[in-house]
């Protein structure tokens, strides 16, 4: 597996473009289609923004993004040392609800699961490690 990106920045919203820009360029260079690149950007943004907002309620911290490729499969690892948060354990939002019954949270996580081929979470050495996988031309 080839490591294409390894990036560590502080967990702040201002750094969103600093993560998404290189990820998007990298997916493009790997031959992913425009629609697939949007899915990659969406899943990564939702995961990163959750970390920016909730992972470090007390002291500031970092986020690391590692992007690897093997046989047309792009694997994005997003790692933080914040409070434990298992994206894969979040319940699905009730998307059929009317405007006023909708809770603001949950939608981002739903998008991650919906657009990626695989979403895995593990807690290791006091870190949250979220793994997102997308296969080229998968659908």
């Amino acid at each position: 597996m080839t490591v294409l990106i390894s990036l560590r920045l502080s967990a702040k919203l201002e750094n969103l473009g600093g993560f998404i820009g290189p990820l998007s360029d990298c997916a493009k260079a790997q031959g992913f289609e425009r629609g697939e690149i949007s899915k990659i950007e969406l899943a990564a943004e939702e995961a990163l923004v959750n970390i920016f907002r909730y992972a470090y309620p007390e002291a500031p911290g970092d986020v690391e993004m590692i992007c690897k490729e093997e046989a047309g499969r792009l694997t994005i690892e997003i790692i933080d040392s914040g409070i434990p948060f298992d994206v894969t354990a979040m319940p699905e939002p009730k998307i059929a609800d009317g405007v006023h019954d909708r809770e603001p949270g949950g939608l981002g996580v739903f998008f991650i699961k919906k657009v990626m081929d695989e979403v895995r979470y593990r807690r290791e050495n006091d870190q949250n490690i979220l793994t997102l996988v997308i296969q080229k031309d998968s659908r």
Partner: protein
Amino acid sequence: MKIDVGEERNAIVMSLKGRLDAAASSEFETALSDWISKGHNNFLLNFTDLEYISSAGLRSILAASKKLKERSGKIFLTGLHGPVEEVFKISGFVSIFRVFATAEAALKEI
């Protein structure tokens, strides 16, 4: 992201260009909210030149919609295409907002 605002018939038309991501959504929410506090009730959001939207962008639209609901205001949408349309579909937002093929068709309904 760039926001162009115009007033047509009885509606404020906001045309969004670029990316409505978490970094841009607060600017958009403030813009919408400013027009609402000036007393405008009807909005048409034109997404023809919008390339990307995330849940943060959807949340800004939802927040405005909640404010408008209290006074029977409306948000209509047009220009949904590509990845933006996909996000509206998978989130179920296409069924909670009125979506029109063209700005003209939407303005007739406002």
